[in-house]
C-alpha cells in the first residue's frame, strides 16, 4: 500500500466488463471444468456404523493466541488515538460521527469503531467487484488504493481467478446450458417481475409448479418459496411464535434466524454449538420450570438449528436432535441454507445425509441461492402448516414474490439434481463436490493447517488467527489467481479469524492441486501451519499423541491425497 501509483490513467469508477472473445466452449469450461478422471468422485453420505462425534478442535500454540489478542489490542489502541486526534483536529473527516447544527450524529464513534478502524484495513479483500458468471473462475476487477482503502482506483482490467468464494456448490452458476436456456424462456414468457405480493397477484402457474417440484424433492407435503433467504427467516417466526413461546437456538445460528426470533418477541435460550447434553438440560429445565417469573407452561418450544453451519463447516447432530425433540415433545426448525443440494447421495440435504425422515422435522427452511445458482428461500412443512403460513406470513401479503426467471432456474436445476433431466448430470455434480471437498480438506490438514468442519462438508474454514494475516492471505492468493473469502470478528470469535473456502462441483482436481500448492506456499510465508494432527492429517493414526505434527510436502499431498481422501475418516 505504500507503493505510489500513477493514477492519471485510472478511474474511481467501477469499470464495465471488458470485451472478451471466448468461444462458447471456452466459456463453458471457465464456468464448469470438465472432469479429468472417474477416480475423482466421492459421495457425501453418513455411514450409520460410525458414531456421530462432536468435532475435535485443534488448537494453535499459545504464542499465536497471545499475539492475536495483542494484535487486536494494538489496533484498538491506535484506533482510539487516531479517533481522538482526528476528531479534535480534523472533524471534517468525521462528519457522520459528530453532532452538527444541533443534529445528532448518524452513528456514534463507538458504534462504528470496528468498521472504521479494523475492517477498513481489510477493505481491499471485501466487496471486490466482479463481472461475468461466478462459476469455476470469477473475474475480479483489478484495483488499488492510495488512501488506505478509503477509495479504489480501477484500470479497467480484470483477472480471472479460481473461485472458492461464491456459493455455487453444484456449479449451477452457468451462462451456458439447460438451466440458463430455460430461465431465458421464462423471462420471455413471464416478464421480468412478479408484479406484486403472492396473495395479491404474484402467484403464477410457475410458482405453483416449482413449489410442487420442491416439495417432492424434499419429501415434504407442501412448500412456500420466497424471494430472499434472509427475508424468509426474518419474517417466518412472527407467524409461528409469540412472547409466550420459547426458542432454543444453537449458539452459531445465522444472523437471519436470530433477527427473526427477535422480531417475534419469543423468549430465547442458547445452547453451545452442537452440545446435545446442554440442549437436553435446557429442555428439561425449561419444560419443568415453564415461563420465567410466572412459571406457566410454555405455549410452544422450538429447537432451531442449521443443517450445515456456514462458518464452521460442521453438521448438526440431527439423529440425536430428532430423538430429543420426540422425547420432549417440542418442535424442530432446521435451516438448510447450506446443506440443501450439497449433502446426501442425491442432494436432498442433511436429512438424507443422516437418513432421517424429513417428516420428522416440523419446519424445514432453506435457501435457493447456494446450490441451485438462483436466489430466494423456502419453507417446507405439512400442508396444514403451510396453508396457515401462506396466509399469515407478512411478505406474502405486502412484499414482492419471487421473480419468474429465478423460479425457473430453481425448478430446472432441481430436476437435473434429481435425475429427471440430463441423465446422470446431477449425480455427477454431487459426486464431484463431495470429492472436491474431501480432497481439499484432507490436503490442507496434511499440509499442516488447522481446518474445521466435517470431512465432506463443502464449507472449509482454514484458521488464520492473527487479524493482520487475513488480508495478506487473501492478497497472496489473489496474486496466484485464487479468490477466497476472509471472515473475522464479528462473524466469528474474536480470535478465530479464518479463510472460508466454499467448494464447488465446477472445480476440477487439477484446480484443487493448484489451490493446495498456493496454500502450502502462502502458509509457509505467513507461518500458518499450526496443526497438531489431533483433528486429522497425520501419517499414522495416533501420531499426534507422540507429538508428531502433520507437515507433508506438497508433492506428497498431491500424490497420495486424491486416493486417501475418498475413504479416510479421522
Amino acid at each position, binding site marked *: 500500500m505504500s507503493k505510489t501509483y500513477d493514477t492519471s490513467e485510472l478511474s474511481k469508477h467501477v469499470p464495465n466488463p471488458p470485451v472478451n472473445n471466448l468461444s462458447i466452449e471456452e466459456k463453458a469450461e471457465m*464456468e464448469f471444468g470438465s472432469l479429468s478422471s472417474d477416480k475423482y468422485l466421492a459421495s457425501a453420505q453418513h455411514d450409520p456404523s460410525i458414531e456421530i462425534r462432536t468435532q475435535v478442535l485443534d488448537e494453535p500454540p499459545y504464542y499465536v493466541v497471545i499475539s492475536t489478542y495483542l494484535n487486536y489490542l494494538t489496533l484498538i489502541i491506535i484506533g482510539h488515538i487516531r479517533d481522538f486526534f482526528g476528531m479534535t483536529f480534523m472533524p471534517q473527516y468525521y462528519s457522520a460521527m459528530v453532532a452538527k447544527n444541533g443534529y445528532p450524529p*448518524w452513528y456514534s464513534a463507538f458504534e462504528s469503531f470496528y468498521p472504521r478502524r479494523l475492517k477498513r484495513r481489510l477493505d481491499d479483500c471485501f466487496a471486490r467487484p466482479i463481472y461475468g458468471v461466478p462459476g469455476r473462475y470469477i473475474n475480479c476487477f483489478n484495483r488499488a488504493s492510495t488512501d488506505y482503502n478509503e477509495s479504489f482506483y480501477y484500470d479497467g482490467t480484470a483477472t480471472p481467478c479460481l473461485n472458492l468464494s461464491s*456459493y455455487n456448490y453444484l456449479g449451477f452458476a452457468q451462462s451456458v446450458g439447460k438451466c440458463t436456456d430455460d430461465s431465458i424462456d421464462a423471462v420471455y414468457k413471464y416478464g*421480468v417481475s412478479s408484479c*406484486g405480493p403472492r396473495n395479491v*397477484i404474484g402467484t403464477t402457474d410457475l410458482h405453483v409448479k416449482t413449489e410442487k417440484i420442491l416439495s417432492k424433492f424434499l419429501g415434504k407435503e407442501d412448500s412456500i418459496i420466497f424471494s*430472499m433467504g434472509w427475508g424468509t427467516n426474518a419474517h417466518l417466526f412472527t407467524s409461528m411464535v409469540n412472547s409466550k413461546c420459547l426458542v432454543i437456538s444453537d*449458539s452459531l445460528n445465522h444472523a*437471519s434466524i436470530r433477527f427473526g426470533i427477535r422480531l417475534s418477541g419469543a423468549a430465547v435460550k442458547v445452547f453451545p454449538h452442537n452440545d446435545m447434553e446442554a440442549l437436553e438440560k435446557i429442555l428439561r429445565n425449561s419444560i419443568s420450570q415453564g415461563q420465567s417469573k410466572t412459571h406457566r407452561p410454555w405455549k410452544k418450544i422450538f429447537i432451531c438449528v442449521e443443517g450445515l453451519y456456514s462458518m464452521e463447516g460442521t453438521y448438526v447432530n440431527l439423529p440425536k436432535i430428532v430423538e430429543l425433540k420426540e422425547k420432549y415433545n417440542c418442535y424442530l426448525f432446521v435451516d438448510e441454507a447450506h446443506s440443501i443440494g450439497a449433502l446426501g447421495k442425491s442432494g436432498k440435504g442433511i436429512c438424507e445425509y443422516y437418513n432421517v425422515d424429513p417428516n420428522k422435522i416440523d419446519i424445514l427452511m432453506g435457501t435457493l441461492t447456494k446450490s441451485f445458482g438462483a436466489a430466494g428461500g423456502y419453507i417446507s412443512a405439512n400442508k396444514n402448516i403451510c396453508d396457515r403460513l401462506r396466509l399469515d406470513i407478512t411478505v406474502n401479503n405486502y412484499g*414482492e414474490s419471487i421473480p419468474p426467471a429465478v423460479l425457473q432456474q430453481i425448478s430446472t436445476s432441481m430436476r437435473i439434481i434429481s435425475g429427471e433431466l440430463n441423465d446422470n448430470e446431477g449425480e455427477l455434480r454431487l459426486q464431484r463436490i463431495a470429492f472436491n471437498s474431501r480432497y481439499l480438506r484432507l490436503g490442507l490438514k496434511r499440509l499442516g493447517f488447522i481446518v474445521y468442519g466435517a470431512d465432506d462438508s463443502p464449507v472449509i474454514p482454514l484458521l488464520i488467527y492473527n487479524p493482520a494475516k487475513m488480508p495478506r492471505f487473501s492478497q497472496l492468493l489473489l496474486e496466484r489467481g485464487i479468490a477466497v473469502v476472509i471472515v473475522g470478528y464479528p462473524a466469528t470469535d474474536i480470535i478465530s479469524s479464518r479463510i472460508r473456502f466454499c467448494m464447488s462441483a465446477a472445480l476440477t482436481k487439477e484446480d484443487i492441486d493448484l489451490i493446495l500448492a498456493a496454500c502450502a506456499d502462502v502458509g509457509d510465508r505467513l507461518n500458518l501451519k499450526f496443526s497438531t494432527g489431533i483433528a486429522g492429517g497425520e501419517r499414522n493414526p495416533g501420531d499426534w499423541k507422540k507429538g508428531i505434527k502433520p507437515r507433508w510436502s506438497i508433492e506428497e499431498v498431491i500424490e497420495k491425497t486424491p486416493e486417501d481422501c475418498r475413504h479416510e475418516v479421522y
Partner: protein
Amino acid sequence: MPTSLIDNKESSNFLVGLAYKANDIWYDLVEILMQLPGGELIINYIKASHKNDPWRTLLEALLALFAIKYFLASRYSQDDKDNMVLSKKETDELIEDWVPEPVVVDLREDEKWQIETNPIINGAVSKRVDIQQGDLISTNVLNFASLDFLGMSTDKKVVENSVECIREVGVGACGPPNFYGTQSVHVRCREDLAMFLGAEDCIMYGQDFATPISVLPCFLKRGDIVIVDGGAYVGLQKAAMISRCNIEWFNHNDLDDLESILENLSKDLEQGPLNRRFIVTEGLSENFGDSPDLKRLVEIKNKYKFRLILDESNSIGTLGDNGRGLPEVYNIPRSEIEITIGSMARSFGSSGGFCAGDKDMIYHQILTSNAYVFSAALPPYCAVAVSTIIKAIIDEEVEGKVNPHIRPLKENSAYLHSLFNNSKELSKYVTVKSDSYSPSLHLRIDADLREALDLPDVYGGPGSAVTKALKNGNEELFFDQYYNLESFKLQTIINKCVEAKVLPTRTKRILHHEVLPIVPELILHINATHTKQDLDYAYSVVSKAIIDTLEHWRKTGN
C-alpha cells in the same frame, strides 16, 4: 482487625478461635507469597494500603472475589434465579404432563376461502391475464391488481436487456455483496438509482419488504426516538419496533398532530442527551393512497432538528413529472430527505428494494445492515432491468413536461378516481379513500352502511381483542369474525368482477401483525397500459358488483 473490639464485646470463644485461625492462614499465605518472585512487592503493597485505609482492603477483596465469580460464570448460563427446586421425578412428571400447542393454528373452516381465492396467473402478469381462482377460471381478465404501475416488466427492451444479462452472468449472484457478489451491473444500477433520485449514493437489497426492517435498526438503537405516521404499513411498524427505540405515533398525515407531539417532546429533548431522532412516513401511503404535505413536513423536521425517513415504495415512478417521487411534486431537493427507502418490484418492474441518501449513511449500512451483510446480492438481471427502465424514463425527460412514460398512469389515475368520486349512487355504499393522484384506488364500505350492517368502525389496534390475544399468546383468538366476514364480502365483489373479466384486489392485512387499527378495503391498482375504455369498463363492472353485493347484504343480512 482491631483486637480491642473483640475484647470489649466479650464475644464467644468460637469467634476468637476463628479470628486466630484466620490470622494463621494469613501468615501462611504471606510466607508462601514471599517465596514467589515479586511476592514481596505485593505484600508490601497490601500492607501499605491496609495501613492507610482498612476499608479499601475489604473493597479490593470483594472486587477480586467478584472478578473470579464473573470469569467462572458460564457464558450460556440462563436466568434461573427464580427457579423452583425440583427432584428428578418431579421434573419427569412435569415433562410428561406438558402438552404444547400446535405449530400453527390450523385454518378454520370459515377461513379457508382466503386461501382458495388467491388468484393464480397462467403466464405473464400484464394488462390482461388468465387467472385461476379456486374453481373459477377466467381468461383475458383486465388486471387491476398488479403493482407494476408503469407496465414495464414485460417491456421489450427490459426483457431483452435482462436476457442478455442472464446470457452473460447466469441467474443468481451466488454470494453476499461484500463477498464477491457485487457485479459491475449492480454498481451501475446503484449509480443509476442515485442519479435518478438525485441522491449522493444508494444501496440495494434483495427484497423490498426486507429493506425498512433492516435499514431502520442501523440508525435507531435503544434511547433514540422515532415518530411514525399512524397509517404506516406493517413493514415500517415492524422496523420501528425491532429497533427498540422510543416510538411515538402521529395521526395519519396530520402534520398539526406531528407538530404538537414534537412541541411536547422538545422540552425533554433539550435537556436529555443528543439522541438520534427520526420522523418516518410514506411518500404515498400503502394503506390510504394519499401523501403528506412534504413541504410542511420538511419545514417541521428542520425546525425540530429531526431527520426524515421517507418510504417511497409506491410513490417512485408514480408521483412527480418524471416519477422521482414526492419530492419532485413539491420541488424539494432529495438531500432534504435523509433516508429514502423504496421498492424496485413496483414501478421499476423488477425485484428488490433500495435505500438512498448521503454517502456516510449508506456506507454505514454496507457494514451493519443485517439484510445486506448476511444475504446474497440481488440477481444481476434484476439490476439490469431497473437500469434499463431508469434510462428509458430519463431519455424522454423534458423540462417542465410530464414524462411520456408516466403521463398515461397519471391520466388514468385521475380519470378512474373521477369516475368513482362522481358517482352519487356508489357513494351510498363505498367511500373513495385515496387521492386522485394515487395509482391505487382505495374503496371502503361507507360509514353509514357499516353501522347498518353492524360492522365495527375499525379492527385491531391498541386495546382490541386481537392485541390482548397477542399479548397472551392465544393464537386461537387471532381470528376476528367480523373482519373475516367483511373481507369475505369484498372477495365476493372481486369474484363477481372476475367473472366479468376485471380483476381488482383487496387489502390482505393480517390483524395480529398490525399495531394500528385497520379497515378492509377494495383496491384497484391502475396501470399505465390501461386505456380509457378499460377504465370505463372496469368502473362499470366494479360499481355494479359493489352495489349488487352490498345491497344484497344490507337487505338480506348475508
